[in-house]
């Protein structure tokens, strides 16, 4: 890539006011660096990933409202986690976390376990228990 070809497309980087460093060759073929504001194919890939996440969050929310799953699953999605990540944050086996997704099991959880989840999501137990979201 030539220095003057380093992409300067619009991207989400702008919101945080930062640019990325790229390596490129100058007119003499010497390697140098140039800052980039973003690149469309990359932005498309990122937007695609965010869309998938948002869909998952919306779906989880609906499932909580329909009482098919506990709010834990919704918060897991909201914080871009998956089962292995959530389970390592609360320090419980994955199968236990999965079990806690069942509304019936979730209702019976003791304060100690609920507190663990609440701490990970940085909310209160009351908020965690709300199923009207």
């Amino acid at each position, binding site marked *: 890539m030539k220095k003057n070809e380093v992409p300067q497309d619009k991207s989400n*980087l702008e919101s945080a006011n930062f640019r990325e460093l790229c*390596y490129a060759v100058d007119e003499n*073929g010497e*390697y140098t660096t140039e800052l980039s504001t973003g690149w469309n194919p990359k932005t*498309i*890939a990122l937007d695609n990933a965010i869309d998938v996440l948002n869909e998952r969050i919306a779906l989880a929310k609906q499932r909580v409202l329909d009482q098919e799953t506990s709010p834990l699953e919704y918060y897991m999605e909201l914080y871009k*986690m998956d089962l292995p990540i959530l389970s*390592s944050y609360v320090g419980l086996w994955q199968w236990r976390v999965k079990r806690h997704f069942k509304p019936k099991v979730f209702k019976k959880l003791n304060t100690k376990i609920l507190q663990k989840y609440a701490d990970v999501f940085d909310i209160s137990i009351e908020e965690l228990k709300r199923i009207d979201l």
Partner: protein
Amino acid sequence: MEIDFKHQQAAHCENGVVANLMNYNGFNISEPMVFGIGSGLLFSYIPFLKVNYAPVVSYRALPGIIFKRFAKRVGIKIKKEKFRSAQTAKARLDENLERNNPVGLQVGVFNLPYFPDEYRFHFNGHNLVVYGKKDGRYLISDPVMETTTSLSEKELEKVRFAKGAFAPKGHIYYPIDFPKKLDLENAILKGIKHTCRDMLAPVPIVGVKGMRTIAKLIRKWPKSKGTKTANHYLGQIVRMQEEIGTGGGGFRYIYAAFLQESGKLLGNDKLLERSKEMTLIGDQWRDFAVEASRIYKNRSNTNPSEQYHEVASQLEALANREEVFFKQLKKSI
């Protein structure tokens, strides 16, 4: 306290941290040199690990390995520590700052407040330098940022003890012992040999063979996984290739810069030639990303499987080209 530390932006976090720490200690080393000597360039597919619900494709060596190899090859010693408790981790960090010693840290990206929201995923292989503490906040030199920044004690603790794959466990590292003069010549040769070996490895998930494996999978995805998942997977490959801290197409350019610098240092014209080729290979990787992004941008595309075949062929062409390249590179030194 604030250590007189020079922040220099880098394309990739680990290289950047190492280059900046080396510069602080009086050795002028560029980011591409660190990357090349540390044999950072790689292609690997990790089928049993999923990130963000898609299989992992990595374009670089695992976090920490670049510095480890670099140190060994140029003859410096590094001290590394991981911690069980956040208190000990903090105490050790403070001790080092007290002694005027800037340190490298491995951290999780998700809770880094200075990153744009869209870039914050549960990725734990990020690296940065802490070079001081002022008004209760840690001074941070994050190599992918243009300028330095700072984090509160709580914020830093959160990212140091992020959980999930490659959990950093408060990982802290810094060089402790240096030779009088760095033996760059030998280190470069070792670094290049290692990268050639990795990229030509007879293993189906590493190097050019790994690229071919992924290409085959790409062909199958629309049928076996459905268009939606296939698009998501393909998008993830591109993101792994091009995004902050992971890089890929960009890594080819860093590697080309390394070959150019090495060629001049060793007076080896063949390496200068290889550098030019690597630049063109980097361009081809970018073409691949452009094609791939076209597919999942038009979700209503009429014939996705044909397009999938096309990008798979592009990836295979890249594998062939890189195979030739690394065989030649091996002979160039």
